[in-house]
């Protein structure tokens, strides 16, 4: 499941968000990794699903100035009926267009970081981490990059920074284990207790997630179990009662 590609030294990060206050205790800086094994129908960070660097086209801001068209080597930008159209399939992600767009209608989503370059991005808010805050690794699914994460966490722990991991749990146990000895808190999602329904809602079965959860509970690390309640999809009482019995 974990491709060698993702094990390499660099990771793609959608964004680093400061003053995150709902991803664990205190004032936190959250890292949103790109790439996710699930495809939840309600995904609230869809820009984090794909692992690669992407370009976001914000149509309402575009003034059809054509600056992107003139710098694109791959015909990804063109005009149809006087309106700018972005054809992602042609894009080589050279990012020339992003630089040329002075209106910020084209923005990069995702940046490649080494452990060291990401680490230095996480330090500025250090003074705010006192009183229980810290760093949260989220996404996407941070544990797709478990080796990268464990290296990063080790460095952060050397600064006494509190670490939370926000995971969907659909990860090989050996990989999850890699980060458990360093993490201070796991934010663990059980999106649906019913296997068939889980698959229907997220495209993946929940067996691995539940097995991992059982193993995780034997570890001394605190876990916050989280259930996204989606009206009409997974919010019925019977599912909740079943969830409570695990």
């Amino acid at each position, binding site marked *: 499941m974990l491709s060698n590609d993702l094990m390499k030294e660099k990771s793609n990060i959608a964004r680093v968000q400061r003053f995150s*206050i709902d991803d664990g205790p205190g004032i936190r800086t959250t890292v949103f990794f790109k790439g996710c094994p699930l495809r939840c129908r309600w995904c609230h960070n869809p820009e984090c699903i794909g692992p690669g660097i992407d370009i976001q086209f914000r149509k309402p801001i575009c003034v059809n100035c054509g600056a992107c068209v003139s710098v694109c080597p791959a015909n990804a930008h063109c005009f149809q009926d006087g309106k700018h159209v972005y054809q992602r399939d042609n894009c080589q992600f050279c990012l020339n267009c992003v630089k040329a767009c002075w*209106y910020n209608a084209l923005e990069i989503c995702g940046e490649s970081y080494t452990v060291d370059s990401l680490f230095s991005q996480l330090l500025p*808010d250090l003074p*705010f981490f*006192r009183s229980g805050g810290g760093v949260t690794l989220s996404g996407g699914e941070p544990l797709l990059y478990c080796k990268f994460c464990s290296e990063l966490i080790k460095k952060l722990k050397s600064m006494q920074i509190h670490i939370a991991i926000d995971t969907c749990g659909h990860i090989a146990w050996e990989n999850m284990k890699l980060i458990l000895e360093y993490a201070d808190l796991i934010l663990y999602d059980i999106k649906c207790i019913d296997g068939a329904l889980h698959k229907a809602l997220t495209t993946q079965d929940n067996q691995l997630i539940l097995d991992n959860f059982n193993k995780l509970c034997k570890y001394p690390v605190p876990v916050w179990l989280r259930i996204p309640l989606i009206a009409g999809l997974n919010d019925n009482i019977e599912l909740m009662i079943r969830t409570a019995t695990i």
Partner: protein
Amino acid sequence: MTAVLSPQIKTLFENTYKNYDESAPAHQKMEYERAFGKNPSQSRCMQIAEGFYAYLSNKNVSIQEYELFAGKLQHNDVSASMPHRTDKTFDPSNYQDGVYDANLELEIKNCLSDRTDLNQQQISSLRSLLKGIQCGLYKRWPGGHIIGGYERVIKEGYQGIEERIRKELSANPVQTIRQEYHHAMLRVVDAAKKYISRYAAAAKAAALASKNPACKKNLLHIADACERISVNGAGSFFEAIQAVILMHEMLTIEQPCGSISLGRLDWLLEPFYLADLKKGVITIEEAEEMIEALWIKLASIRQGYQNVTIGGCDENGVYRENVLTRIMLMASKKLRFDQPSLSLRYNKSMSSQLWEEVLQLIESGGGFPNLFHDETVINSKVLSGVSIYDAYNYGIVGCVEPSVCQKECANTEELRINWAKVLELIMNDGKCMITGETFLLKEHKSMNSISSFKEFYQWYKSELLYTIDIGIMATELLDPAYVKRYPVPFLSCTMDGCIEKACDVYGGGTIYNLSSINHAAMANVVDSLLVIKEMVFELRLINLSDLREVLINNFIGYEDLQNFAKNKCGKFGNGCDEADKMMAELAQMVCEHVNGRLNYRGGVYQTGMYSVHDHAIMGLRTAALPDGRRSGAALSNSLSPVQGNDRSGPTAVIRSVTEFPHEMFGNGMVLDLKFTPSFFKNIYHRKVFRTLVNTYFDLGGMEIQFNVIDRETLIAAQAKPEQYRNLLVRVSGFSAYFVDLYKALQDEIINRTEHRDVV
């Protein structure tokens, strides 16, 4: 404590603004003029004292049956810049900018008639100041801006003050200017005593006329209190508040200027409250009502900038909680007036119970209280030359100006400089891009002769300092005219130092006679300089003289460049190293340039980094800026980033703003952050909020204030997202920046029901 007002307070509340006496301003003017006419050969201070005496002797004194305290602050929607009421040209309806009467032409006329020895440079500095105010380069607001000696009046009474004056008089029996000033002081103290006695009589008469036994009792209470405090210090909590109200009324009669501030009222009144509690003559509920009644009195002067300071350390620098702090927070929360301005001296060890009261007032959205870090402010006062023990006793004047109660006159609004206008002027050969008015530059340069950003930047810095120097030269010429023409002997006799020196507050009579230079549009300038660096000198997208044309044309037809400026260059407030370092360098430069410089009153200059509302007013008169701001738009507020340019959250703003030490801002600074009310609904967010405040102060922050906003703002944010980039909202399980959300989600949040507390 309930949020409901008692019936008596409710009646007072409903009648807050019904005390406008149309005849009062004209009556005061008439009495003053008559007094001047009667005594043409007398000194000006004696004439003023006679005018004060005559007006207080003859003006209407009335007490309504439902009153809890005597005293009537004349309702006013505006504060004037100097006691023009004593001048023939004064017309209270003729004010500019909605707040003050900036009659600089009259000021200059006074100065020129007093000073025939001015050289060409001095005269041209006066002209520059006048033109500068008209073009939004400078702003000045003389008078007011002080914390009066309420403590002296409460503790010693007017009798005590009179004895102090007589003691000085008997030590210097020879007829001198000194003696004249003391006689003027005696006259105003006599006027005050008699005026308060008139209130005692009015209260007695109202009691006789009243058929309501409760009202009768109240009115007799007022009569007793006034009788005592007309001579002596206060003997109870009630009398102390009554003394504060009447003294404040007389101060605002003596000079209708803004920002006459009350200082540390909780610390001033606490001993009286505790003594009354011990005697069993007061309940908490009664004390709450009295504070509320005081607040209602102050509220009648709208936009009065009457600051009340609460919290903070004791006289030895040790923090302890004051029992009245909570009551004053509650009063502001219940009444929700713009007055008094409530400032809180914050200490990290504040109990969570008291902090909860503070937070409740903050989240109610009125912007009160703003928070001052005791340690930083005290250090800043010490750097301005104040002794450590006096620094412990600082209060806040007007907006955010820390000032020692009863001992300091800092002309806190002496002069403000619009940094952005300086940039406009140098880029246009000294000419205002809007009016064409020409200003002196230190050095003229042809735009295209400037070969590097470094050269441009050095030039800007040098012209900024030159503009400050011209302004200081002019204000030093103008200020002495105030003391000469509009002395304030009543205020002066309550302040430490003035009786002993026989010298007016505004003439150097107090212990600390500081002068203050304030600044505006700092973030616009940093952002603009970074745009010039990138656009002109690095990418060479345009040259400087063409950029000047773009600015004169207000970016019309150059929207691409405007967007480059807005979107592609570093901005202050995002933890961007280059921007933060530049702000630090410029702030340090102006502080080093003026701080500690001697003023004409024997004190020193200090620096303020706050803009009142001048960032909007000066903005109206400032042309388009290289940072992409259009002509006429508001400038950045105080030390806050340009509106909407802080896109990395509040922690980044705080890091940027604390890149430089705030101790160098002896006249205060402002950092304004915006939150939505729903942010505070989550118990974890409330905890996080205090962490944010504590960290800001740990990093050396001096002042922070909060806007908590609702539906109307969100709708406006939807219409103009570029102005609201930093607006945090609660979505469901997480918080996000409102403008980053897609429209349907924005609509959903807008449409949620608003629950409001009902007073």
